[in-house]
């Protein structure tokens, strides 16, 4: 039992380390001027979140965070950055008092709400008492999938998940239409009957023919 408790304390040290690094990354994102460094830092923020979620024993959430945050969002932010400026201008100090006032008030409100949170591992907490126990009791008989989270997402709340997928797909489609990930939105030339004549894809001035990444298939 002593061994278990000390292992818990060491995991807590890892959690605190991850949270400290998250704070450092967040302040760096706010303070830096180079937008490329900020995009890279956002990818690192997602990776840190993923590692922290793993440390909190939420591996599925961590996987989503790593795939969406570190993978897709980084590329989308890069595309947005290439359409816009490379540097951000600092906000003058007299325009920063309003936002920090809002943040402080919201933080005080959240601290005020803190005593209503259930303690960690509480058997009577809302997550452990109502419908969750029902899922745990009935999944093995009704769905016959060993993973209860999968059963809830894909079967009990299947229509819900389907709707989420549709929303995410249309959001991604809208982002792609807005950004134009080929980098030359507006430069397309087409015949009146709609056949595409000329779509510049790669700037040839940067290409050396003997040095193209070695990924040739």
């Amino acid at each position, binding site marked *: 039992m002593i061994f278990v408790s000390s292992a818990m304390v060491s995991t807590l040290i890892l959690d605190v380390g991850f949270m400290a690094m998250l704070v450092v990354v967040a302040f760096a994102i706010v303070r830096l001027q180079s937008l490329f460094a900020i995009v890279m830092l956002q990818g*690192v923020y997602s990776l840190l979140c993923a590692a922290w979620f793993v440390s909190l024993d939420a591996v599925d959430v961590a996987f989503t965070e790593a795939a969406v945050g570190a993978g897709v969002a980084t590329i989308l932010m890069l595309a947005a950055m290439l359409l816009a400026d490379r540097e951000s201008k600092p906000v003058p100090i007299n325009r920063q008092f309003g936002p920090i006032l809002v943040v402080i008030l919201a933080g005080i409100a959240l601290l005020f709400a803190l005593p209503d949170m259930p303690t960690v591992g509480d058997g009577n907490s809302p997550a452990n008492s109502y419908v969750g126990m029902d899922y745990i009791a009935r999944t093995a008989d009704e769905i016959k999938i060993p993973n209860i989270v999968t059963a809830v997402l894909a079967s009990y709340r299947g229509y819900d998940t389907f709707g989420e997928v549709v929303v995410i797909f249309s959001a991604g489609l809208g982002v792609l239409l807005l950004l134009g990930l080929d980098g030359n939105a507006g430069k397309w030339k087409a015949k009146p009957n709609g056949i595409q004549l000329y779509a510049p894809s790669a700037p040839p001035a940067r290409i050396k023919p003997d040095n193209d990444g070695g990924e040739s298939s």
Partner: protein
Amino acid sequence: MAYFNLAAAFFVLVSMALMLGRLLLGPTLYDRILAVNSFGTKTVLFLCVFCFVIDRPDGVDIALLYALMNFIATIAVLKFFRYRALDVSLAKSHITQSDEER
């Protein structure tokens, strides 16, 4: 053995902090790309070590997926900075063809 794994996880955390320092200070763009790539590798290593700490070795499979995703993201970032586009094939024949088109 659990303490060994915990110590390894802690030092993966320390190396993550070092990569973070390179990412913040890094003078050139490629320092930062390499720092992000290496940070992703450290995340994979942390996942591998930590799933043995909590005694669930099937986390190694998820770590493999992380490694694949990290590689693809780095390739995408590099490609974006070279070509300003994502729909460029990396094969050599396509590039010479697009050279002729211009």
